[in-house]
Structures are given as structure tokens and as C-alpha cells.
């Protein structure tokens, strides 16, 4: 079993500009993980990068090492250790500029308690996605970090 959180936001900037920034791991990961901790590990030389990324949520740290692949206008990553999860970022055209969507799927261990934990995790992941998307939008529209 797994649970998925999905959020999207409209950015009032040209599609090409948004796609370039939103799929650049060096820009996006610090924005998404800005509420927790993140660290660039290595460039794998095959078009992918490895990062350590954690969201600090109360008593636990959700995340681990992820392998990131950027193919504009999309970016995706999958965990290679730590919390089992995947992330997909996609930029599409929108009448006001561009729309950025983020989808995170988290898989936690256990049966009943695991399902309950996934239910809670979905809300937490969703709120973190919103926070990351708002940071990204503000960064693109106003050129600074709030």
C-alpha cells in the first residue's frame, strides 16, 4: 500500500522560464526541502543526481537519499534509502503562464498502523508540497525567497 499527495500552482511567468527553474534540482530541492534539511551528494554522470533530503516532522525525519532525474519540463526522484517514496514534478502551459504540479507517493511499513500513518503522512506531505510550490511561485514571480 502507498499514499499519494498531489498539489499544483499557477505561476505567472513564461512556461519556458518556469520549466527551466522548476526542473533544476539545485533550485527546486532546496525550495521543497527548505523546511527540513537537504544536501547534494553527487552527480552520477548519467543525467541523474543524488541528494539527501529530509522533512523534519515533530519527532521523526521523513526522507533519505534520493536519485533525481531532470528531463524538462519534468523532474522526478525516487528514494534509494530511507523512507520509501517517489516524487514527480511537471510543468505545463497555462493561460496565465505555467502550472507546476507535484505528486508525492509515500510507502510506509505495517498493516493497520501503517495505513493510519500513511493517512497522516498524506496530509503532511500535501502541506509540504503546497509550501514548496508557494516558495517556487514567489521565487519566480518576485525574484527572491520569502
Amino acid at each position, binding site marked *: 500500500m502507498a499514499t499519494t499527495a498531489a498539489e499544483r500552482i499557477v505561476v505567472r511567468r513564461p512556461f519556458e522560464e518556469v520549466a527551466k527553474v522548476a526542473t533544476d534540482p539545485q533550485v527546486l530541492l532546496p525550495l521543497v526541502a*527548505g523546511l527540513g534539511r537537504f544536501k547534494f551528494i553527487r552527480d552520477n554522470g548519467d543525467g541523474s543526481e543524488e541528494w539527501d533530503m529530509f522533512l523534519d516532522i515533530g519527532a521523526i525525519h521523513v526522507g533519505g537519499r534520493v536519485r533525481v532525474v531532470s528531463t524538462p519540463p519534468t523532474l522526478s526522484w525516487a528514494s534509494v534509502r530511507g523512507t520509501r517514496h517517489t516524487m514527480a514534478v511537471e510543468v505545463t502551459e497555462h493561460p496565465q503562464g505555467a502550472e507546476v504540479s507535484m505528486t508525492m507517493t509515500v510507502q510506509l511499513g505495517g498493516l493497520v498502523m501503517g495505513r493510519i500513518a500513511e493517512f*497522516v503522512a498524506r496530509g*503532511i506531505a500535501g502541506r509540504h508540497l503546497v509550501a514548496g510550490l508557494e516558495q517556487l511561485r514567489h521565487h519566480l514571480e518576485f525574484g527572491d525567497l520569502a
Partner: protein
Amino acid sequence: MARIGLPAMHRVADGLEGRDPEFIRKVLPRLWLAFELYFRAEVEGFENVPQDEPVLFVGNHSGGAGVPDTWLFLLAYNTYFTVEGRPLVGLAHRVITEAPVIGDLARRFGMVKAGPDRAREVLEQGANVLVYPGGDVEALRPTRDRNRIVFDGRKGFLKLAHDAGVKIVPVVATGGQETVIVINDGRKTAKALRLDTLLRIKSVPLVLNSPWLMLPLPTVPLPAKIRMQVLPPIDLREKFGDDPDWDHAYDFVTSTMQVGLSALAARTTLPGLG
């Protein structure tokens, strides 16, 4: 159409003259108990507030008629800067300031009826001013929008800060809108009943009250955890010059606050519980 004039039944003077530090000192422990034990409140970021000049605090309003965020800010401000420090004057809806008993209570805490002239006067007197541009519209926004900034396009606060030459200090809070359950914003109802023109009431929402369900009786707020964050100041003159594009300035300030609010909301594990 002329607005309905509420009878002036207050005995306490309006503004800094009516602010009563001894009264505030007596009330603070009660507020502290309520917010510490019932709402498990957390307030951070007062180190961002310039100490040597008055500022305009701009907050997102939540919690329906109870507006717990206002009381929490008054509590935190008056304990951080002390009751004897730079006074804080809150701009309140006339329904509050002109109500008997409650109006006097609000005035003793240093609240005045919201309006640009009065706000500018107290800023010139050296007080910090607290304003909630979204007012009743934001405090009564649907629960599904609890983590959204809803200023309804109101830009008066920007002009006030710019004209008075003071910085804006944004204040964002989560949890307040989880103390009530608002099903819809009721803006169409307010317009249909002409309350927007008669009493400047823009929202008559459908609210699920505790413990009266939907009856319009005094309610008990739900014990949601409230988090508040004071953000770094914004100098409108420095950022937008002497003749700002107000739409751009509005977008920037509300965007900055939305980023802060969403980041604060991300600290929530479960809505209500915190």
C-alpha cells in the same frame, strides 16, 4: 445608502488615551493560561520587529467572531515588548469598538475603530499598529481555505504604511480557522440582506458552532493548536519607491505572507491537534 449608526455606549476613550496598561497587566495571565493550555499556542519571530521606529503589523485574520489570533498577538506582544514598552494599537471592526462592554474592553487594550486617519494618528504618536486587511471576510473564510491569505483586494493598509513612512511587519498564523468550522463564506447572503452597505458586514457564513451546531448563539472555540510567525519587515518606499504600483505591491506583500503561512502550515501534523 447611509450606514446604520450604532449607539455610542462606551465610556473608555478611543486610542492611546483609553489604553490601560494596568488593566492589560491584569488580563495577561488569564490570556496566557487560555492560550497555553487550551490552544497550545506558539509565537515566534518578534526579533524581526524594528525596535526604534513604529511599524504596521499586518496579519491574516482567523477564527470567526472569536478572532483568537488577535488576542494571542496582544498577549505575545505585550509580554515580549512589555506593557510599558512601545504601545500596540489594534484596528478593529466598528461592530467591536462600538459594542457596549466589549467595546470598552477593546479600547482598554488599545484598540480603535479601523480607519486610515485614526491609524495614521496613532502611528504619528509613536505606537505600533496592528491591522487585519482581510477583516471579517478573511476571519469567516471557509475552513477549506484556512491556510490561504484572503485580503479581498484591500490595499488601504499599503497606502497607510507608505504615507506614514513606516515598515510593514507581516504576521501569519495557523490554527485560528480550525477553532470554528465555516462551511461557506456567505458573501452572497450579506449582499442580499444589504448588510455590506448597512453595517459594513461582508460575510454571513454558514458556521458549524460548538456546541450549538448552526444556531446563532455564543460559541466555544474548538481547541485547535495555534502557531504564529512574525516575518521580516517590508519597506514599501525602499522596494517600490515614492509612487508604487499598488497592485504589484499588494501582490508582493500577499505573496510573501502566503509563503510564510504555507511554511507554517507545513508544521501541522494533524489539523486541530497541531
